[in-house]
């Protein structure tokens, strides 16, 4: 025990001695003549004499420690007190040998000190500021009250919008090409001096709704609606996932997928939701969408909801599309990104709703295959109207869904006369939407009778009406049943539509027609000659000098005149919402063709348009100098 203890003491002494030894030696070497150092040296000598390992072993532990401590203290004190002197010496020495060095070092030190002080001051100021800027209760209340007084109005009117209320026309019924209007309808310009008739016409010719195949007057569809209402009632009372899937929905899905030759179809209960949800279900953050500038609002909302990267190309401009795609490819090379890293989609419409133009699908499909993009096609207005068998713009171009267009979405509200939208594609495409199509998953399903109507409508387009009629045979009276059998269907129906479209374009552009002549140089047709949607814009000559609103107003007046004087319903599109559109089309008159319009109806339209144009454009509406050339 004691042996161990002494060992420790010895070690301690040894280390202390050693450290002192080094200190003193350093001091000795640095300042050789210093007195204290001399005395240190003597101590050192004493130490080394007394504290040899052997002697320490012999010494009593206690005395050794105290001795050691005393000596240590003494030595340290002398060492410390000698520092300023040494420093001063060293300093003076340095000043003599290298004054520049001293100068720089001094400046540096001063700078550091200033910096520290300033920083502290800044901190202090910030603290004060923070303390002062923290609002007290009174100020917060003041701010709250102030905001409350200055808050914006809910649904504040857009600035470029005029005060007039939108079209207040109320339809009382649809029969053939006739729309009957309710006497309660509010006309757009009811107090205009020019129009003597302030009464709403009872019945007008329908060039306004998207009912291309005249489904509204089809007796088969009506009977179908009645019989299925009787079976299913009206609503479906639930989303598809939760007992809202009724066999009628399954029927329409399989019916459409066999009509178009796809693996499957998925039914949405609203046409616009179908395209919005479809785009948003597939494109996600980090993916790339290359979108035609002219696509409709529903697709664009889907594009913005998807949060994907978006690039636009000029409307229907294949060269511009190639430019955009090549730019992406260059970026791939620059960023060393593989094309398989992101999903890429082209988003186009088959027949553009807002333009009446047709998509050059052949070129687009070529480009998409060259650059490895998938195609999302919204065929809402071409489905049922384009193509030899009414299978939409893909058929028109000799293409096939799934093979050339991965995702095809369309609304069944136009040619099919139902309500809702459908997306078709491969099994993968369809099944994925059943969980991630927001409008499918989170919305109640379509009323079953509307799905049945769509089934009947597809059969009508296919020319298989007998298939449906045989179910009605027992339910209908003989004369009613006969009425069903006289209904035209299939290719007859489509030919009728095509004839009507070409007749409509022919008459409007016929230079020998007395009324069509009045339209020349005033209104120009901007849509595709085979499109069932026909757009008439003001010619450049007429439009120059007019703002967008004024143009819209002129066209509103023309449409109004057509309705009141000519008893023809056309739509003026200038007042439609522009908020979501990438490129806003010029204000237009929209004329839609359908199968129940006759030649006389078209004559009436042209007459009404001619008269309206004359009445509106040749009168000096805005105090502008509009010269009639004819």
């Amino acid at each position, binding site marked *: 025990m004691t042996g161990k203890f002494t060992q420790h003491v010895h070690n301690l002494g040894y280390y202390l001695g050693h450290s002192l030894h080094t200190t003193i030696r350093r001091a000795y070497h640095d300042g050789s003549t210093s007195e204290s150092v001399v005395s240190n040296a003597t101590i050192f000598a004493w130490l080394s004499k007394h504290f040899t390992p052997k002697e320490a072993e012999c010494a009593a532990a206690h005395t050794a420690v105290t001795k050691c401590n005393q000596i240590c203290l003494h030595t340290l004190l002398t060492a410390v007190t000698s520092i300023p002197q040494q420093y001063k010496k060293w300093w003076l020495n340095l000043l003599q040998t290298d004054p520049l060095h001293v100068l720089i070092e001094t400046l540096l030190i001063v700078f550091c000190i200033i910096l520290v002080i300033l920083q502290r001051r800044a901190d202090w100021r910030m603290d004060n500021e923070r303390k002062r800027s923290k609002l007290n209760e009174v100020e917060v209340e003041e701010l709250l009250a102030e905001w409350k007084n200055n808050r914006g109005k809910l*649904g504040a009117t857009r600035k470029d919008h005029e005060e007039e209320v939108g079209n207040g026309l109320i339809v009382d019924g649809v029969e053939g090409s006739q729309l009957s209007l309710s006497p309660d309808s509010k006309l757009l310009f009811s107090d205009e001096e020019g129009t003597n008739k302030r009464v709403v016409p009872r019945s007008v010719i329908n060039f306004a709704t998207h009912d291309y195949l005249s489904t509204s007057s089809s007796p088969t569809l009506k009977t179908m609606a009645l019989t299925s209402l009787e079976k299913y009632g009206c609503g479906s009372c639930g989303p598809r996932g939760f007992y809202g899937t009724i066999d009628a929905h399954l029927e329409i899905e399989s019916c459409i997928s066999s009509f178009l030759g796809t693996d499957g179809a998925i039914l949405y209960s609203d046409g616009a939701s179908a395209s919005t949800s479809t785009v948003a279900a597939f494109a996600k953050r980090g993916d790339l969408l290359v979108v035609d500038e002219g696509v409709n609002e529903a697709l664009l909302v889907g594009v913005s909801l998807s949060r994907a990267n978006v690039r636009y190309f000029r409307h229907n401009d294949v060269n511009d599309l190639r430019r955009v795609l090549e730019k992406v490819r260059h970026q791939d090379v620059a960023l060393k990104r593989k094309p398989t890293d992101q999903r890429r989609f082209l988003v186009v419409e088959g027949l553009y709703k807002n333009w009446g133009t047709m998509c050059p699908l052949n070129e687009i499909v070529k480009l998409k295959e060259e650059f490895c993009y998938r195609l999302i096609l919204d065929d809402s207005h071409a489905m049922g109207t384009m193509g030899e068998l009414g299978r939409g713009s893909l058929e028109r171009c000799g293409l096939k869904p799934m093979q050339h267009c991965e995702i095809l979405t369309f609304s069944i509200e136009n040619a099919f006369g139902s309500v809702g939208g459908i997306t078709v594609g491969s099994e993968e495409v369809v099944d994925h939407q059943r969980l991630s199509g927001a409008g499918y998953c989170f919305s109640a399903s379509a009323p079953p009778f509307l799905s049945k109507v769509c089934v009947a409508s597809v059969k009508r387009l296919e020319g298989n009406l007998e298939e449906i009629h045989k179910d009605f045979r027992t339910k209908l009276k003989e004369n009613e049943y006969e009425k069903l059998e006289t209904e035209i269907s299939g290719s007859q129906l489509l030919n009728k539509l095509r004839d009507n479209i070409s007749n409509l374009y022919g008459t409007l552009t016929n230079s020998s027609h007395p009324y069509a002549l009045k339209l020349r140089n005033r209104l120009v047709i901007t849509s595709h000659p085979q499109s069932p949607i026909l757009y008439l814009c003001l010619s450049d000559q007429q439009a120059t000098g007019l703002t967008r609103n004024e143009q819209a107003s002129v066209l509103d007046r023309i449409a109004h005149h057509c309705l009141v004087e000519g008893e023809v319903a056309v739509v003026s599109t200038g007042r439609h919402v522009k908020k*979501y559109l990438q490129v806003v089309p010029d204000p237009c008159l929209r004329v839609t063709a359908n199968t129940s319009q006759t030649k006389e109806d078209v004559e009436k339209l042209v007459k009404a348009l001619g008269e309206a144009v004359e009445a509106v454009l040749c009168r000096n509406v805005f105090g502008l100098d509009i010269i009639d050339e004819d």
Partner: protein
Amino acid sequence: MGNKHQINPLQMELAPPQPSSCTENDDSASTSTTAVSSAPSSPKGSLIISESPTPFQSEESIDDEILKASPLSLCNSRDPYADVRQRMESLASQDQVRHLHRNPAATNHSKELKSINPHTDITIFAATTTYLGYIVLIITGHIRDICARFFRKGRYRANNAPNNNNQTRPSDDLSNYAPLLKSWENFYTRRLYHRIQDCFNRPIASRPGAVISVLERVSFDGNKTMSLLGKISDHVEDDEGSDLQSYKMGKHYDESDGRAVRTCLNLGSYNYLGFADDWDVTCKSDVMGSLSCFPSSMGSSRLEFGTSSLHREVERIVASFVGKEDAIVLNMGFNTNATIIPTLTSRGDLIVSDELNHTSIVNGARASGASIRTFRHNDDKDLEGILREAIVVGQPRTRRPWNKILVIVEGIYSMEGEYCNLRNVVDVCKRYGAYVYLDEAHSIGAMGASGRGCCEYTGVNPVDVDVLMGTFTKSFGGMGGYVAANKEIVGILRKECAGSSYHNSLSPVVCQQIISSFKVIMGQDGTNIGRDKLTALRDNSNYFRMRLTDMGLHVLGNYDSPIMPVMLYNPTKIAAFSRECLKRGLAVVVVGFPAVPILMSRARFCISAGHTRDELDRALKELDEIADLLKLRYARSTFG
């Protein structure tokens, strides 16, 4: 051979319903009586009302309301719930007081009403087993994926390999195209959802009334796809197997157009007022009549030629029903939210939305470009804090003051069964000048003494709620949605909302359905059907909720709300519960991960006015058995 091959799925998927359990009525009677006797006495409830530190300002008004809402208590002879009436009413009124005041003291006192906050009150046992369940599922899924990759064979590999049947499509070539669905993105669908796919999307072949015919489905590829069973005789010949015979003998077996269907009590559809049940009496003639002058679809948008006189009529009725100046009707409830919110708000505005709001609201808010904050579900204190801070701080980065603030809440939260704390929300919003947007998708027609929704139920003046939105899919048995507000706002919506300007209008036939059902609810058809429906809905819901709570199930939501979610927690219980119920002839909705938080899987019952007490008692008896089988009594014991 072929036949034999096809029998297997039959045996697997369609285990014949047990023909035993025939003493149903006696049992249910005895359970109901025991429930009553074992229940705490009702005076306890009234004690709490008087004890609550801030007495509800119109304590009498609750009683009045109860009296108004339950005219049947006056004529006990007809009241099917006469024996439990007192307890039901006291529970409902206690719950209302507690909800309106958010008074924890009341909760502590009343054992019966101990509300369970779904976000905190999951027991540790349930939480760990749920996590464990998901871990096992995920690991198994990954193992299967790895095996499929290793052996180049698997259910989901067909998509990657070139398709032999069809032509190869360019986009199938994954060396140039990114896969349409990344494997981790649809992992959940493949390995978790498909396992229990048969519990969702069940097709029915009838009206969505109180009793529905659920079409039988089978899967020939391990639940990857489901197909309809179709005609039974296609699969097996009649005299061949005893399987088929016993299957056909099953209690709930039926046929519709030759297809095998299962007759089930519908506890899933939003048919709150039961218009799908008595449609022939209430709406049929009008609705079918509307087809004589209107087509099924207008083929045009509201702004153009898509407005029929029926649309205007609906708008007029809705406006007067909810107590607003004007209303606009659009085609789809989802779309109404998704297009109206972007019209009302834009960049520079702030939307403060309840965290449990429906996807349509979320979509609409995101499409609007406004800033979005969420506040804790039904927590007006949190809302107040957010509003104060938002107004004082202003917009992010620019620090400009907000142009306007819109607070969006729902009347009844469809996954929680809880109604909105509207009075407090409106108070807070009024204090700070925020606008209130109330989505009454589930509450309109289903809550309040005369069905006028959450405003009426919570005693809030509709004038204080700036925008009232609702749908016609639920209580009215139709489709579409409305927005009711003052003339100015609706006028602007008519012009500037994409849903009115571009999207096609609601079918006039559906409009007629809405008009007819409104007339019934408002009593304008000259009958008491509407009032009876409202009473029946409230009683059925409260009775069902009371009995479920008595069973010790973990029930969410409030009394008087027709939606009652029951917590299942474990992923495996989702499928087990749904299949057990279907086997016993109950069509129930189960909800799993994407729609609710991952731990909070639940079953959801939607009660209808079309249900009778006998039907509900039968359902409750079956549920009682299932609760034992699946260990669901989480409110009674930690281990369920």
